[in-house]
């Protein structure tokens, strides 16, 4: 008589879902692509924090990065839009249903070229959503042209140098109104997790610029967005710990060394300072730090800025708490008397 095999209990998160429920379809991106690491971090973070995938909406534009929303959160609705105009689609969808957690994934072509206008206006509106830039300095899907985030002097695979200075998407986001701005590296699992989890907890626009190397077109010696370049030039601002709202803050923090930021949902971001002078609530200090790092040839990563008090666009619009998309007819069609009143005014 054999002993029946009892399957080990399935590991579930606080809302009873398995990690499997946070996965998407199989990636079609290149093996080793940084974007796949970002997708994995998204899966982990949403699973670990127990975010309901039914309340998430995924958005993207056009490019390799924009394909990736198909590869995570398969139980969430997704919208692969047109090039550079993901912010508009996401804005419209969130206006329609403000209870959705918007996750936008774009590339540097999407954000820094065709879509820079929409990006800047999303920033200006502080539209509450997560905006991830998978930044590899190159157009992958059209086979290796420079993007507008390519550093001056970096080269294409064939050796052609880039003559123009890059847009720093974090600096743009800082200057014009995003309330959570971070830069990370697809190869830094721990940091990217903490950044993503903070973005999930944040009420406002989170801009996360992830250096995400393109193994096919931009991982060579002339590149400044390669794995090896990042290993040599990344300058980590601080160590990050994310403590979700449903966990106890049991450990006392020694004063002065760790900065504790309480997020909108009651979670905490703990920032253990490496560089003593850096204050992530000082927008212009962050801009100065980016400038200084660029001058030194370093890529600054970490949380550049967090502001938990600025109103979002939805608050400025005085938008109904219930999704306007599904308000009943009684709330959206004024009465017969209203029409009669208006007609009388026009007589």
């Amino acid at each position, binding site marked *: 008589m054999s002993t029946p095999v009892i399957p080990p209990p399935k590991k579930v998160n606080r809302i009873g879902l398995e990690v499997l*429920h946070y996965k998407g379809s199989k990636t079609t991106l290149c093996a080793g692509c940084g974007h796949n690491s970002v997708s994995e971090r998204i899966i982990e973070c949403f699973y670990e924090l127990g975010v*309901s*995938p*039914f*309340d998430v*909406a995924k*958005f993207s534009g056009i490019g390799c990065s924009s394909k990736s*929303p*198909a590869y995570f959160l*398969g*139980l*969430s*609705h*997704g*919208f*692969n*839009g*047109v090039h550079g*105009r993901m*912010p*508009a*689609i*996401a*804005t*419209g*969808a*969130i*206006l*329609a*249903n403000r*209870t*959705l957690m918007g996750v936008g994934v774009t590339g540097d072509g999407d954000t820094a070229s065709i879509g820079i*206008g*929409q990006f*800047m*206006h999303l920033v200006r509106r502080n539209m509450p959503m997560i905006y991830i830039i998978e930044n590899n300095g190159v157009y992958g899907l059209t086979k290796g042209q420079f993007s507008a985030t390519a550093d001056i002097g970096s080269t294409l695979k064939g050796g052609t140098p880039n003559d123009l200075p890059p847009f720093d998407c974090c600096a743009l986001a800082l200057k014009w109104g995003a309330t959570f701005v971070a830069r990370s590296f697809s190869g830094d699992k721990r940091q990217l997790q903490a950044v993503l989890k903070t973005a999930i907890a944040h009420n406002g626009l989170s801009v996360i610029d992830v250096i995400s190397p393109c193994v096919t077109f931009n991982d060579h010696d002339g590149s400044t967005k390669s794995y090896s370049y990042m290993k040599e030039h990344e300058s980590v601002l601080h160590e990050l710990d994310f403590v979700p709202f449903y966990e106890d803050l049991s450990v006392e923090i020694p004063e002065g060394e760790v900065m504790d930021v309480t997020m909108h949902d009651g979670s905490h971001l703990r920032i253990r300072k490496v560089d003593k002078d850096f204050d992530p609530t000082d927008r212009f200090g962050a801009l100065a730090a980016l400038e200084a790092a660029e001058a030194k040839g370093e890529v600054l990563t970490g949380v550049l800025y967090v502001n938990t008090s600025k109103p979002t666009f939805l608050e400025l*619009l*005085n*938008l*109904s*708490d219930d*999704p*306007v*998309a*599904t*308000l009943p*007819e009684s*709330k*959206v*069609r*004024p009465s*017969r008397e*209203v*029409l009669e009143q*208006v*007609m009388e005014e*026009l*007589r």
Partner: protein
Amino acid sequence: MSTLEVSPVEPLSGRPDHSVINDFSIQVATVNGSGSQTANTVLMRSIFQMGIPVSGKNMFPSNIAGLPTWFTIRASKHGYIGRRKEIDFLVAMNPETAREDVMKLDSGAAVVYDEPLKLKELRSDLHFYPVPFDKLVAPVCPEAKLRKLVRNMIYDGIVAWLLSIEMEEVHKALVKQFGKRKAKAADLNWGAARAGFDYAAKTFTKTDPYRVERMNETAGKVIIDGNAACALGSMFAGVTVVTWYPITPSSSLVESLIAYMKRFRIDPESGKATYAIVQAEDELASIGMALGAGWAGARSMTATAGPGISLMSEFIGLGYYAEIPAVIFDVERVGPSTGLPTRTAQGDILKNAVLSHGDTRHPMFFPCSPEECFTMAIDAFDFAEQFQTPVFVMTDLDLGMNNWMADPFPYPEKPIRRGKVLTAEDLENLGGFARYRDVDGDGVGYRTLPGTHHPAAAYFTRGSGHNDKAQYTEREDDYINNMERLSHKFEVMRKHVPEPAVNIASGARIGFIAAGTSDYAVRESCDQLRAEYEIEASYLRLKAYPFTPHVVDFIRRHDRVYVVDQNRDAQLLGLMRLEFDPEIIAKLRSVRYFGGLPLDARTVTDEVVKQEGK
């Protein structure tokens, strides 16, 4: 003595030998930004309040202040409210254009003018009434800086005396125009109107034949512009997300909507807005937001004009393929860039029908009046959600920005129809769904909204490369199947779009087909053809594209059918050429007007007469 001149110094004794009652056009020529709009609106409203059918057309430049502008008021006892080419009564206030304006008049017209312009020297076959506006305005408007604005109200008083417009109606119209909050401004303007009236009464002897007489043809009617009517329709359709970018002549559509929504769509319990209206950064964004909102289940809309439509082209193609409802108000106007953005046209018909790349077809609704702006806006929102596709509501500058006499709008009796949307409960019962599968045979799949709490709810939206489960595919058969279903869906729309209004004239060999504001000119032209040339003409007014079978039936019934287009390239006719059989196309003739002014009946009549060889 051949002159018809009248001067206050030397009044002529001639009295008009006949009267023209309630059937003439007044043109007021002023400088843009001089406050003439108030005076013109009051004048038009006063005639309206006397029960006389009236219409107003503002021909204004793309400019804030300083360039010439003309406002034409037509009073018509027959109820013709289209533009009339001939001007009977000119108010010449603009030194820049006064001479040309006078020279263009037909013999026998009357001219009220600013005395220093010395216009009466120009012609001897007109009735001239010189008015010293500056002398009259000073005593009634002590504040010198306001005089420029108040000055125009003087001609209201002058014209009222000359045309027998009752001053009580002028006063009533003024009060309405300024509202209770601006009583002081109303008083000031009333003083100016009175001064004009008194001056005319004291000074002039009327020699022209034009005057009004009270009728009872406007009781219960309203005065409204088409843009405001579209806005009201949208509000009563239950629009929830409005995204736009300012462009003439559509801006006032959303501006009206903002004003109405603030009054009537704030939830009384929560004090919060039951809608979002967002001025986007450009048209690329405004349509993107509208589609994002439509995808997430909102009743969404945008309003724009031709150049904005061009920018929206790519997104609208995606809306077609991804099958997302949205309503796009296109207030058509002339040309791109700095051109004639303040002149009317119907120049987007062909473009919108097939807008974007790949194979695309889009439904268009063509309202011709404020009432239809209201009812078709409501229909368009239902239609967009029923067929899950962008829908154009095609108006034009003439309809959108001019004031029209209209019947009061009917309250929508049918409940709002949200189309095929599956809830979590539906999914539980069905076990799942395929987003783009034609379950009901109408080509329209079922959709779910993001935020639906069910494991089977989610799907991934993208362009043309999807199978019926919304999965990515580049397979030939999947692509063809999807394209054919979309084509079938468009055929089904044919049975659901608003049907044309058809008037078959007894014994008519010829007919007209027109859409939108061409209606007024065509109806009047039918009467002109009958009265002046004994030509009977039938008339089919299109209310929508795709064309319904009525159109071909109508063409078959007639020897020749004149398709009226307010564009150079006969776009409406061109659209028919794309789908009708050769023997049908062979019967079509074209009447085109593209000068930027609202179409008038005489232009239509002359062209038909020419082509008929009469």
